[in-house]
């Protein structure tokens, strides 16, 4: 059954090929895209079940034994990230059916979308550092293609900035990987864990830590490396932004979590201190950036940055509780943030603009949308009993238990400012009357379009609600996943078996 670990990237790549070849045919791409996402969802669910029942799962590609070949690994963190990505992939794929114009479909939208998912899933499932780099490349090029698809000036501008800054990340990552290989002679992450644990080279290790923080930090959009994100996320059509918002930065955070628990665990080194500092700065600068915006998508984009800070904070605090908080936060945030973008898309479709000054009246015109926004937005702001509350609770509790009072204070302040921006959107887009009279209700959408808009949003909102009301299974899972990360013996044994240098 080990080959199943390759399916999360094989399915979308296959789907991408079929979708591209059949792009001239009206419905091929659409059907293939949704079907592939459904299949991906099933597979990732199965992987999660396998990991839950039998621990870490491993697949040696080409049957070359670790650490010589490339190993695919699924532990709890990988499994949950895969499942959440597949869920988001499916939700946005359906939403995209109603929002992506025929012209972009002809240019290969569905193909690039599937390739993006392949890159994301590949990153989550690989156990090899260079292979991770390859999946990052797939992700980067597919996201660039999606970003500029349609070729409008604003897209080209955003795309140029996006790709230029991400290439710096590529450069740093490649340098880091090369040097790490020079230091240890291996690229397998489990073997790297063993090698680095006994390595007596503090200078090299610290410099490598910094290199990886910068490389993945650009991907994750931490301060002061996040500029590419607000510079590009408002450019493409909304489904593209939504899937970017949900997944792209989170892959960077995943890579940080993976490397800074497995390769560079906290200890004498410099890594976690640096991470803590940038986490706090990221939280504050991101949320302040949002406070200055008056455009629906830009507010949400800056909030991504701020919440990346929370995720990195959980990693930097380095306790089982904090790391569990980061994992829970990540799952919650992917769902809530993607949903907010989808809602933003529906709101933009109904009112004709994303500028808060030009829109309004949705509270009266589209009460269902208002309720769904309220759930997602207040969850993001950390209000109980929604999912964001538990995420925040775990992080605040762990910071207080470590007597990191400043950290706690900044986290709480960031939460308050998040609420400020969310209530700004609520007051402007929903409560305030629309500047011009007209029909802004959901009723003006065709029933099929309405279903493709509301269906994904409702499902994601239900996930947010259930994470909030019945958090125990998810928190328990996060705690176990965090324990696995902090005590990686099972992971290492599963990958390397009896191999010893």
């Amino acid at each position: 059954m080990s080959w199943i670990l390759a399916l999360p990237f094989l399915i979308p790549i296959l789907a991408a090929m079929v979708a591209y070849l059949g792009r001239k045919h009206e419905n091929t791409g659409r059907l293939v895209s949704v079907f592939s996402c459904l299949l991906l969802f099933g597979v990732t669910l199965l992987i999660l079940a396998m990991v839950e029942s039998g621990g870490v799962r491993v697949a040696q590609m080409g049957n070359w034994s670790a650490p010589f070949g490339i190993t695919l690994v699924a532990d709890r963190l990988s499994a949950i990230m895969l499942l959440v990505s597949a869920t988001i992939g499916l939700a946005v794929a359906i939403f995209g059916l109603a929002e992506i114009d025929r012209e972009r479909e002809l240019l290969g939208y569905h193909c690039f979308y599937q390739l993006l998912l392949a890159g994301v899933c590949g990153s989550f499932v690989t156990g090899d550092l260079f292979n991770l780099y390859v999946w990052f490349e797939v992700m980067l090029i597919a996201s660039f293609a999606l970003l500029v698809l349609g070729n409008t000036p604003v897209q080209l501008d955003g795309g140029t900035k996006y790709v230029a800054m991400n290439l710096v990340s590529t450069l740093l990552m490649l340098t880091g990987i090369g040097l790490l290989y020079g230091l240890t002679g291996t690229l397998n992450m489990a073997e790297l864990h063993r090698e680095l644990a006994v390595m007596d080279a503090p200078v090299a290790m610290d410099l490598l830590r910094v290199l990886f923080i910068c490389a993945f930090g650009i991907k994750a959009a931490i301060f002061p490396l996040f500029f590419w994100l607000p510079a590009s996320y408002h450019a493409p059509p909304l489904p593209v932004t939504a899937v970017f918002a949900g997944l792209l930065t989170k892959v960077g955070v995943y890579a940080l979590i993976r490397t800074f628990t497995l390769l560079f665990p906290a200890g004498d080194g410099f890594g976690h201190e640096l991470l803590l500092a940038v986490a706090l700065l990221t939280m504050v600068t991101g949320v302040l950036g949002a406070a200055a915006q008056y455009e629906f998508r830009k507010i949400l984009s800056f909030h991504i940055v701020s919440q990346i800070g929370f995720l990195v904070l959980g990693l930097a605090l380095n306790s089982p509780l904090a790391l569990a908080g980061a994992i829970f936060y990540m799952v919650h945030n992917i769902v809530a943030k993607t949903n907010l973008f989808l809602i933003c898309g529906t709101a933009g479709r109904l009112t004709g603009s994303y500028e808060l000054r030009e829109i309004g009246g949705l509270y009266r015109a589209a009460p269902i949308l208002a309720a769904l926004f309220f759930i997602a937005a207040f969850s993001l702001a950390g209000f109980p009993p929604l999912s964001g509350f538990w995420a925040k609770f775990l992080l605040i509790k762990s910071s207080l238990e470590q007597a990191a009072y400043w950290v706690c204070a900044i986290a709480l302040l960031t939460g308050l400012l998040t609420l400020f921006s969310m209530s700004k959107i609520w007051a402007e887009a929903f409560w305030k009357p629309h500047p011009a009279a007209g029909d802004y209700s959901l009723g003006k959408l065709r029933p099929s379009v309405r279903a493709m808009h509301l269906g994904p949003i409702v499902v994601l909102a239900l996930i947010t609600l259930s994470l909030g009301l019945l958090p125990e299974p998810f928190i328990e899972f996060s705690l176990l996943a965090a324990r696995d990360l902090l005590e990686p013996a099972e992971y290492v044994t599963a990958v390397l078996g009896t191999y010893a240098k």
Partner: protein
Amino acid sequence: MDRPHSDAAGAGRFLGLVFPLLPAIPLLFLITQWGSVAEGNVKSVSFPWVPSLGIEFSFFLDGLNLLFALLISLIGVFVAIYAGAYLRGHPMLRRFFLYLALFMVGMLGLVLAADLITLFIFWELTTISSYLLIGFNHDKASARRCALQALLLTTMGGLCLLAGLILLGYTAGTFDLQEILARGDYVRGHSLYPAILVLILLGAFTKSAQFPFHFWLPNAMAAPTPVSAYLHSATMVKAGIYLMARLHPVLGTTPLWEWTLTIVGAITATLAAILAVRQTDLKLKLAYTTVVALGTITMFFGSDDSVAIAAAITFILVHSFYKASLFMVVGIIDHQTGTRELDRLGGLGKLMPVTWFCAGAAAISMAGFPPFLGFIGKELKYEGALAIATEPTLVAGAAIFANILMVTVAGTLALKPFIGRQRPKSDDIREAHWSLWIGPLVLSTLGLTFGLFTPLIAEGLVQPAVVTLLGEPKIVKLKLWHGVNVPLIMSILTFGLGVCAYLYQRPLRAFLAFLLSFFPTTADRIWDALLEGLKRLADVQTRWLQHGILRRYLRVIFLAATAALLLALIRQDNLSLSVAIPALNVKEWTAMLLVAAGAVMASSVSAPLAAVCALGALGVGVALLYLFFGAPDVAITQLLVETLFLVLIAATLHRLPLSYGRHATRFRRLDALIAIAAGVVVTITILAVIEQPFSSPSSDYFVANSMPEAFGRNIVNVILVDFRALDTFGEVVVVFTAALSAATLVGYTLRGRRR
């Protein structure tokens, strides 16, 4: 998606009839439990919720929260009846009832919770639902502003409270409220106690509108009147009060607690009393009197004397009844006449006798006339004030001052709109529908008649609450006639001065205005300035960070990476790197020189094409180095890539939106510095790495297995297509995607142009 209004109105009428049954359910339940709880029994129920964090979804009922829960559900019933009538036909009535129901659930959960986190969740539920209720008239910008203010302020307190509760739970080792109540001594002795206390009090003070957070409450009057009647009499603002009462046995009886509560409460009560007299809008006047009451109660909770506590508890009871009635009365006046401005009202008594009766009864209770409960409460207050050990004169002084002004306000409310010439002059003004006045009538009458059943109240409600709060058995007696003593004299003084103040209202208002003019600003304006400052800070930061210029973004990114690497270097204890000049031959030196020259030229020329060519030279130099160090295949690849790159760039350069060569020399120098620094730290990193002996079992494995296992003589090829075939697969996908993307970009542009 709104249904037509008539339909909504029909559904609304039905809801208006059914909705009051909702709070009636807990009310009936509480009444059945009353007897048993009053005898000192505690009921509790608990469900596991988040066992991995030690959080339970649990509730309990004891003497203290019984009182609060009874008030919430009893007043809830009448507010529900009133709201159905007040908002009849409103298109958003169903949403209103939804929010009100959420709010009721939040309040009941809050006071009944037996787990700190459960309590907090209901606490925030009241915050959210009150946000929606205060902003109910969402078309008005002022309502949105006030809703936001209340939300932000109470959430700010809520977040402090959360931190405080987590610390309290951490200190006590449990989130179980009943267990924590038993560990008061331990908590008070803990080094974290001051932090816990301050954080929790911040939560309570913001919610209960204590100075300097008092301003949100009057602004929250933007809500429809039924909301004000409910939120600001018996419920929302009492949440903070309840919290202080609940945690009194854990956090109370220290000097820090006593001083903080006494002083904050006294300032709040005094300031709000002055502001209340000054107001001419009836609803705002009432709002400020609520703040007075909250300040007074807080002040009394500062003490651990049983008489003071009993006074506070009795006052909570009295205040809830008269304040809910008075809000509803003001709502009726507003509803029937269209104004609640004091100067535009008069002579309504004959037209609206029932309303007048309600106003009068409630006002009597508020002013504390004998023989009603208000009087007993006030006597008790004075007695309690004198019993407070810390600062009896301060408390008594503040209490008397506040009460004098309350007598004045009560007089104004009960008389001013109802006597004299009829204003506004309209023939349409008539008594309200019964469903509007039934609430205030019952509540104010109950408030009055309580005085006649003092033993019942004392033993059934006040005493159990006081006993629970203090954690020790106390006998509470409420008496109408104590004989001639100091409190009675203070009472008489209060009435005398209060009546005088009522009669000389105009000069009094002028005098208070004069007094207030010494304050340079109001808390409300400070709040606005804070928000404005926040926005400005955000603007400045964004302009500084997210300016939109790619070159500057890249500069910051490289600078940050270099600085972080330098920082890591500086932190090292013993940084010793052996730098040996390698023995290179001439051709190797030549290749190196080519690389260096290419780099220098690329960064110094200003024509884009020249820079690209220089980069090409650099690339060729690197390829040569590969060649010389035994990797001919890599060298070939490098050469191919360089050539292709040069051709592609040269072909497309004129179409790229580059602003190359047009920026200041100053910045180019800075960029050069950053580039050199980056190069240096990366070099040091490489040196640090190659100091370690290199051994790779992988290389050995590849060499050993390439031929026998993978059947390939060229090891590099075997690595690419077999050992690490997945990487190659991924890179093929990358190239494929890049080609497709480029094709669509070019094709699309061409088609766009043809059009």
